[in-house]
């Protein structure tokens, strides 16, 4: 293992990308992801990373170039946030439809309008159904570890992977981060070998028209591949554990064994929430926390298992789904529970939008509300948390 070094998380992530020996990096600057690609450009221009850095003229072009490079057999990287992700939206579906092992770091940021550079999950939730494998990091160390994992998984499943980390809150924080040794990375990540690529010696046609007779079958095959990737994702974490001793799972639980009520979260907010759990546990309250690390494919069974015997859940969403029955995670959780024997009440709050702070005290209050929700008759489907009247 490498040394634990204090680093800005963006720099650590970029260093990990370099360790993965990417061939092509293609990116367009947007706050708060810039430090990642700036550092990669520096590594390339200083001769420390043997890769082509394509400084494209837009995010749409960034993903276009990644698709071209990956189709030619190159290991690719890009990163973006918010409006940038929106701008490359069209191609997210083509990348997954083509089964290209592209890895992207989404440094989560709120969507315009009004324009905001601050953190929430509004950007990545729009690609929920884009057919990508999607993971969420809690902190810098996890972001780096998920990055290595992303390449391993992408190249074994031929499905693109998006690693999410919260803008500023994770990306710009200086943290002690432990990178793998280069030899460990090389072992974990053998050179990319693609069965099908653009090769004059073995010509293939990529991007043909899907006539009505085959379109449905192609989509079914893609969905089955994404579901089947679950096994590969778990195995890749097991392999990572063998190297590092660190254990990653699709769902992270905290004090769930005997929990009566629990919070469901994704991303870095769980660190704050854990403090609230600690305080309430000290007071004898049986509260717990569930953090979803793997968002796509959704780990349904693990999730049902994780909720244990809770009587009420509070799903704390960080993105809007205007006019629907909840936030994206809330909808997912309710849908999962509908077919389950376990049917805790589900309070769905949407908050921490556009960089709004949610404190330990806020979570204590949310836990209290979740307790009272056990007996309450649900009067609403979701609520925007913390909005001033």
């Amino acid at each position: 293992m490498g040394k634990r070094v204090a680093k800005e998380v963006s720099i650590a992530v970029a260093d990990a990308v370099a360790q993965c020996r990417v061939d092509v990096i293609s990116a367009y600057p947007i706050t708060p992801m810039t430090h990642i690609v700036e550092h990669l450009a520096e590594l390339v221009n200083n001769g420390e990373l043997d890769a082509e850095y394509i400084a494209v003229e837009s995010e749409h072009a960034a993903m276009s170039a990644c698709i071209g490079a990956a189709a030619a057999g190159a290991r690719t990287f890009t990163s973006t946030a918010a409006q940038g992700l929106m701008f490359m939206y069209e191609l997210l579906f083509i990348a997954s439809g083509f089964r290209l092992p592209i890895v992207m770091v989404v440094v989560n940021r709120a969507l315009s309008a009004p324009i905001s550079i601050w953190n929430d999950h509004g950007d990545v939730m729009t690609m929920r159904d884009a057919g990508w494998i999607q993971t969420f990091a809690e902190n810098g160390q996890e972001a780096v570890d998920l990055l290595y994992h992303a390449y391993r998984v992408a190249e074994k499943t031929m499905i693109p992977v998006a690693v999410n980390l919260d803008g500023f809150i994770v990306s710009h924080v200086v943290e002690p981060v432990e990178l793998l040794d280069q030899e460990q990375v090389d072992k974990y990540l053998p050179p990319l070998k693609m069965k099908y690529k653009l090769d004059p010696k073995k010509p293939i046609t990529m991007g043909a028209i899907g006539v009505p007779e085959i379109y449905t079958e192609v989509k079914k095959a893609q969905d089955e591949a994404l579901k089947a990737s679950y096994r590969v994702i778990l195995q890749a974490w097991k392999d990572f554990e063998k190297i590092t001793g660190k254990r990653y799972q699709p769902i992270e639980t905290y004090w769930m064994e005997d929990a009566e009520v629990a919070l469901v979260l994704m991303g870095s907010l769980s660190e704050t929430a854990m403090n609230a759990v600690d305080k309430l546990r000290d007071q004898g309250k049986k509260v717990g926390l569930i953090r979803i690390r793997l968002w796509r494919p959704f780990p349904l069974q693990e999730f049902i298992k994780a909720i244990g015997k809770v009587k009420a859940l509070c799903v704390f969403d960080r993105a809007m789904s205007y006019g629907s029955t909840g936030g994206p995670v809330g909808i997912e959780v309710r849908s999962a529970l509908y077919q389950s024997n376990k049917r805790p009440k589900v309070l769905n709050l949407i908050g921490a939008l556009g960089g709004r702070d949610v404190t330990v005290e806020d979570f204590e209050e949310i836990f209290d509300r979740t307790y009272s929700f056990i007996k309450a008759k649900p009067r609403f489907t979701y609520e925007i948390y913390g909005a001033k009247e």
Partner: protein
Amino acid sequence: MRPEWTKFKPVNIKELPKEDWIAPGHRGCQGCGTVLPIKLALKVLGPNTIAVSSTGCMEIITSPFPFTSWKIPWIHVAFENAATVASGIEAGLKALMRKGKISKKEWINVAVFAGDGATYDIGLQYVSGALERGHRIIYFCLDNEAYMNTGVQRSGGTPLFAHTTTSPAGKVIHGKVGWKKNLDGIVIAHGIPYFATANPIFFADFLNKVKKASLVEGPSFIHVYSTCPTGWGAKSEDTVTLCRLATETRIFPLFEVIDGKYYILNRKIDKPKPVEEYLKIQRRFRHLTPEEIELFQNKVNEEYERLVKLCEVFAPPKESS
């Protein structure tokens, strides 16, 4: 002129391969003058080529799964971004060759075949980006002067007064408003190593331009005149006539620009045919009044004279070949 051409040998037409790398049996219309240049270009580029298509006629007629007309590796990603997909492929090949992951014995041509809509309009930014960054790609703009695939809507490449479904020849507005966008000027302004216009009916000229483009170690761009009998309301059997007239009326002059600064007129048209001869065999121009034809003629003359002047003033230095 360009160092890559010091030993340049013109294409020997007799020695052109018999084999085609775009197969017959595709779904192009009768008399399609847009698929023709692809066939010819691939005869020069050969099988060691990766082709990138934008969305458009040439993409749909060649790739309805499970059929493909492409005997070379081919990719189509979206409408607007063929230049950038090609940039990615080129960068990928470069990196993989440098790292010894694929053979570096012979460079693999990366050729883009994109329509006028994909180049003049929705893809202009992508073309500009790729040219500015200097990728070694050969970009063919197959200009059939409207969005033919979606049913003949006007593009930035549609000629003045031409009837299309979104620039109809109405009682008040007579077809397309405004002259065709000066795409050539925009491309040339990037100072790329090689720019050329080409017309597939001027066979040897066309093939040699493709060969020059393939040798250049940087971006090259060939603006190809491409007829569309269906969209233009022309007879299928008139494709060759239209091609000939386009250049002989000075509407589509043949020229090259090296490094964005040296202009070469390949075919001086001293006795131009009147544009009317070209216009009258296409239904898209049938509503034109004599005054409009005159206006069209004057603009063609003006553009051509401007080009001749550019070729005089910015002629390449008279050194070697």
